[in-house]
């Protein structure tokens, strides 16, 4: 536990000091969106990594949060700070209600159902033109502000978004080490066994689904207020898949895995721009290589790479001794 806290503090300090290295560069702006992606990936990991339930529709909750915040602040003139919890709460409740029938399903069927949910929500964003602005998007969403401090620059948004992301990571760490977290992992490994041992699997799955959705909605609200413009295409099927990729590449079932995955997948395209037209090929190739050679994700794979030569040398040494 103490070690967990130390790790967390180390990550937090790195994140809070990062702007010193990036000030005056557009990468700070990219890192703002990396922060939002981190929140989404950490939230998705609660469901996929810990409880072992797949979702191909999480962009829907991201989008619902963004649109609730966007519509309530622009059309109805609500205060942005008030809309954020309202959006997160109502999306959480929605997910709770929808979760009961959906999470009865398993495996491929669950994937299909969540996929359907994502597509339905995407169609609503596109077609309900009077409210959402339709395909041409919703503009003029206000920035967040604290008194006279308006969160409009990259540095301010960086701290705003990453402090939320750090809170999510703390939540995820604590949840993983609690009784609930152990119950989730039990469901992940063997649902029947967990139920035999008295874990209310059905309720727990729905609860974690709702929590995950609420955190995604919060990330959506932040996205809306940082960008000040939203359009449905951002919340489509591609985003859902990209989020899942972040979680898988980073490492399922750990808090820092999704964080690394989100960071890598957001920053990698920027570094690959040097390769001009071949960047997409290289990007895809790298993802393939990583899944093949780092099957536990970055968070387990990279220390593994480190340990492997050490272990080999040790084995050789043993053989020489013998």
């Amino acid at each position, binding site marked *: 536990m103490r070690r967990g806290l130390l790790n967390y503090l*180390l*990550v937090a300090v*790195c994140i809070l000091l*990062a702007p010193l*290295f*990036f000030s*005056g*560069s*557009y*990468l700070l*702006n*990219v890192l703002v*969106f990396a922060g939002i992606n981190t929140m989404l990936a950490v939230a998705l990991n609660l469901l996929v990594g810990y409880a072992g339930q797949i979702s191909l529709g999480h962009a829907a909750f991201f989008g619902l949060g963004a649109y609730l915040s966007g519509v309530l602040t622009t059309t109805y003139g609500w205060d942005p700070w008030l809309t954020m919890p309202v959006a997160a709460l109502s999306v959480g409740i929605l997910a709770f209600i929808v979760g009961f029938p959906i999470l009865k399903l398993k495996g491929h069927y669950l994937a299909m159902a969540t996929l359907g949910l994502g597509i339905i929500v995407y169609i609503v964003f*596109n*077609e309900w*033109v009077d409210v959402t602005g*339709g*395909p*041409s*998007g919703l*503009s003029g969403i206000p920035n967040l502000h604290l008194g006279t401090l308006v969160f*409009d*620059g*990259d540095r301010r948004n960086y701290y705003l978004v990453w402090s939320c992301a750090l809170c999510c990571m703390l939540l995820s760490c604590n949840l993983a080490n609690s009784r609930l977290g152990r119950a989730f992992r039990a469901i992940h490994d063997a649902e029947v066994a967990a139920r035999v041992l008295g874990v209310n699997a059905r309720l727990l799955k729905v609860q974690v689904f709702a929590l995950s959705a609420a955190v995604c909605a919060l990330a959506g609200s932040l996205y809306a207020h940082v*960008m*000040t*413009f*939203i*359009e449905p*295409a*951002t919340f489509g099927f591609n985003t859902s898949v990209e989020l899942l990729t972040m979680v898988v590449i980073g490492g399922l079932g750990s808090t820092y895995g999704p964080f*690394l995955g989100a*960071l890598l997948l957001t*920053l990698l395209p*920027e*570094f690959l*721009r*040097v390769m001009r037209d071949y960047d*997409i090929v290289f990007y895809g190739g790298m993802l393939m290589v990583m899944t093949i050679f780092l099957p536990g994700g970055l968070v387990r794979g*990279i*220390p593994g790479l480190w340990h492997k030569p050490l272990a080999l040398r040790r084995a050789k040494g043993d053989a020489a001794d013998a």
Partner: protein
Amino acid sequence: MKTLLMIGCSVCLLVCSSTLALAAGTIKIGALFSVTGPPAFLGEPERNTAKMVVDGINRAGGIRGQKVELIAYDTVGDPTKAVQMATRLIKDDHVVAIIGPSTTGETMAVIPVVERAHVPLISCAAGSKITDPVKHYVFKTAQNDGLAVAKIYDYLQRHRQQRVAILTVSDGFGASGREQLKALAPRYGIRLVVDDTYGPKDTDMTSQLTRIRASQAQALIVWGTNPGPAVIARNARQLGFRLPIYMSHGVSSKKFIALAGSAAEGLKLPSGKVIVADALPKKDPQKNALLAFVKGYQHQYRQEGDHFGGHAWDAVMLLKGAIERGGATPAAIRDALERTRNFHGIGGTFNYSAADHAGLTKDAFIMVEVRNRGWVIAN
């Protein structure tokens, strides 16, 4: 682990920034086009044209003796990416002005960034909300959808067709068109008797057309980009549809005729003048620019220049004019842009002012008709 990543990031950043070392005495212009992704059909000709025009300017000695450097980034049609790349152009590349992005969504997302940084932006997207209300640093070259609607309605009024059915695609282009079609109808004494939509990926629109045929409509206006309108044209031909069909400027390319085949014959649509550049009367003030663009593009890329490339041509040329008149600082460029009068470009004759950053009238469009698999000017 995190620190390792951080060091990696910093090294990469150093490498990037050193390769972008300042070349002294050049004017840096940024460009954001979605060269890949769904709107690639816009971004690719735009980037090609911008490159071609900038090369041409440099061969002729630059602007006021200074060479121009074009720094173009691909935005993949994603507003988030567009914001990141706009920030990069401003903060890392220190450009004096930006042309693009290609789509209305990306432009709306980028506007707060350029307004905050006080860098002029000339968008190549069509949405009227880009310059309505007017933003201090934001201009556009693509014609407003409202102008195309006005051109069609003007034509309908002259041909005494008052009851009209509209069929619009459910994406950004169609939504904007539908809005304008509904808003402008009363001004031209036109009544919309059917207001229907279709999905961008639909492959059969017979049911909508059947409904329209059963209505009292005297004409049908279809608002969409390829391939939907071509499907509608074919369906209409199969159904023996007799009403005159008007298309939007979204399909004014040879591709549409190729997709619709013989079903395209006789369709009319408002279009920029590029596709009929040769047939324009000599006294048309745009003729010189149009021919230069069409020939230049054909020569360099072995393809026909289209409207989208034209938007980028206009953006670069407007910038060139502004820098010649005012100097190469963002503030001077903005002020000089706003004073642009009678610039005869590809998209039309531009007259910017403090109250109008779109600068065109409905004369930017011309009604054309498909005949013998080609375009002719409709009368």
